């Protein structure tokens, strides 16, 4: 059994930032990654736009990853395990992993940071009707095949879902010579960033249809086409208005699921809204010494926020391992009136400020965000516009906490 102050599971942006933050506190760190290099999904995101908040400049995904990877690899206090698949995690923080080079590895850690990221919802997850031909990919899988492996997955493409990965892949496939015939979005709005709609779709005259979904697919060996139809009440497709679009490829950009399988059967309390753990402001879960950050905690739209969040978790994990993280009663943070969830879900009263991150349930213009504690309003913030695809935050003074906290919006 090897012993480390902090074990970080996952070597993407969250894991690397957490490991570095733990090191700044003097902790010894084990960083476990299942791929053969650090960087996670950033390695396949060759487009630019990363790092504007964190580094104050625009970087591509691989460049953003490299900034952290170089620091991690240069730090003798971080032991990196590559191609290491973590099989289990116990409540007393024993991490068991399997790797081709090191065999079965057992690590006893003073604290653990979960940074496994998320995976994509698949054709099965959305109960896609029709045949099961080749040519149906999740957008991220197509992105990896294209940008890392160098394979173009198809020539005539329909994309279901207008999340950022779908939009980015519309441009990427077009750049590589494919024809993207349509992006269909079931909702009346896109969860993607405005900038991506303009620069990935409009720049290339790729049509985007809202309130439209794929109703079934055709093709025996290879996809031959998809049927699309507008949706009405309750997102039900109007089959009388079905339209056939011949294509050889369907990309799915229909949502991400935090990859928390490691917690199955554990006592870590989970949120039904985020599909991640319930955490306090240190990103500590309900099991002491186990922390969570990045997309495994809740799906982010900006990697800059992931890095920021993981730094909090990494530093707190180091404190916990060294017996320096103050415990104490927590207050609950809940969401209401247009706020889908707020995170952290628990906070400690005390000094300084804490940022409450939240997402709204639809597009709001000119709303006021209100934070209450113990029934009293402790903060109000007017906003111009809030969209579900863009994570919001509000900073509150912890000294004002008098009881349970609620984040809501009002006219």
């Amino acid at each position, binding site marked *: 059994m090897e012993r480390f102050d902090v074990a970080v599971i996952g070597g993407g942006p969250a894991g690397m930032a957490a490991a570095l933050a733990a090191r700044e506190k003097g902790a010894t760190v084990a960083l476990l990654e299942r791929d053969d290099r650090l960087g996670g999904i950033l*390695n396949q995101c*060759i*487009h*630019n736009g990363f790092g504007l908040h964190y580094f104050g400049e*625009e970087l*591509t995904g*691989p*460049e953003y990853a*490299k900034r952290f990877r170089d620091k991690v690899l240069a730090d003798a206090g971080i032991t990196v395990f590559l191609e290491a698949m973590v099989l289990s995690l116990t409540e007393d923080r024993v991490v068991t992993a399997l790797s081709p080079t090191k065999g079965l590895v057992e690590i006893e850690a003073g604290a653990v940071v979960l940074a496994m990221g998320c995976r994509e919802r698949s054709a099965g997850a959305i109960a896609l009707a029709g045949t099961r031909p080749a040519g149906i990919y999740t957008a991220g899988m197509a992105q990896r095949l*294209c*940008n*890392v492996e*160098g394979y173009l997955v198809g020539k005539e493409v329909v994309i279901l879902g207008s999340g950022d990965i779908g939009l980015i892949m519309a441009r990427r496939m077009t*750049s*590589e*010579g494919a024809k993207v015939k349509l992006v269909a979005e079931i909702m009346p709005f896109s969860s993607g960033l*405005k*900038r991506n*709609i*303009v*620069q990935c779709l*409009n*720049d290339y005259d790729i049509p985007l249809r809202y309130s439209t979904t794929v109703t079934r697919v055709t093709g025996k060996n290879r996809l031959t086409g998809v049927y699309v139809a507008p949706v009405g009440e309750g997102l039900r497709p109007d089959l009388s208005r079905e339209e056939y679009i011949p294509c050889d490829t369907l990309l799915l950009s229909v949502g991400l699921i935090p990859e928390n399988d490691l917690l199955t059967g554990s006592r870590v309390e989970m949120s039904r809204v985020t599909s991640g753990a319930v955490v306090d402001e240190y990103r500590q879960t309900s099991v002491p010494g186990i922390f969570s950050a990045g997309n495994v905690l809740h799906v982010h739209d900006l990697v800059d926020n992931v890095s920021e969040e993981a730094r909090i978790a990494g530093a707190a994990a180091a404190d916990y391992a060294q017996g320096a993280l103050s415990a104490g009663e927590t207050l609950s943070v809940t969401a209401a009136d247009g706020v889908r969830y707020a995170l952290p879900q628990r906070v400690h009263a005390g000094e300084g400020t804490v940022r409450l991150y939240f997402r709204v349930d639809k597009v709001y213009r000119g709303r006021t965000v209100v934070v209450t504690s113990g029934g009293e309003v402790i903060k109000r913030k007017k906003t*111009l*516009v*809030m*969209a579900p695809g*863009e994570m919001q935050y509000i900073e509150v003074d912890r000294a004002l906490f008098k009881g349970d906290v609620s984040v809501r919006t009002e006219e």
Partner: protein
Amino acid sequence: MDTTCIMCPMGCALRVEETDGKVVVTGNGCPRGAKYGEAEFLHPERVVTTLLKHERGGVVSVKTDRPIPKSKIGEFLSWAASYRVSGAVATGDALAEDPVGCGATVVATADYEE
């Protein structure tokens, strides 16, 4: 020309027209939108990211080191599709100088080990 302002999350719907040699932006909520609309109308530019093939197989991700005119993107992508990289590549290496005549250098955004 109709477009969406991307300067902030508001996403104002802009209309940009030229009347009597003067560019007029409407629909913007603030001065930044007017500036963005005018630039998009007169000389839209983008940083382009794409892949170059390596002669030993595999791909190298690249970007233009500065925005290039939108009208040049097609030509740039055609150049990228036919170009072959050789040798080891480190992030930040200049792989080609000004391939489509607009002053932009093509820079590697990832490493390639032979």
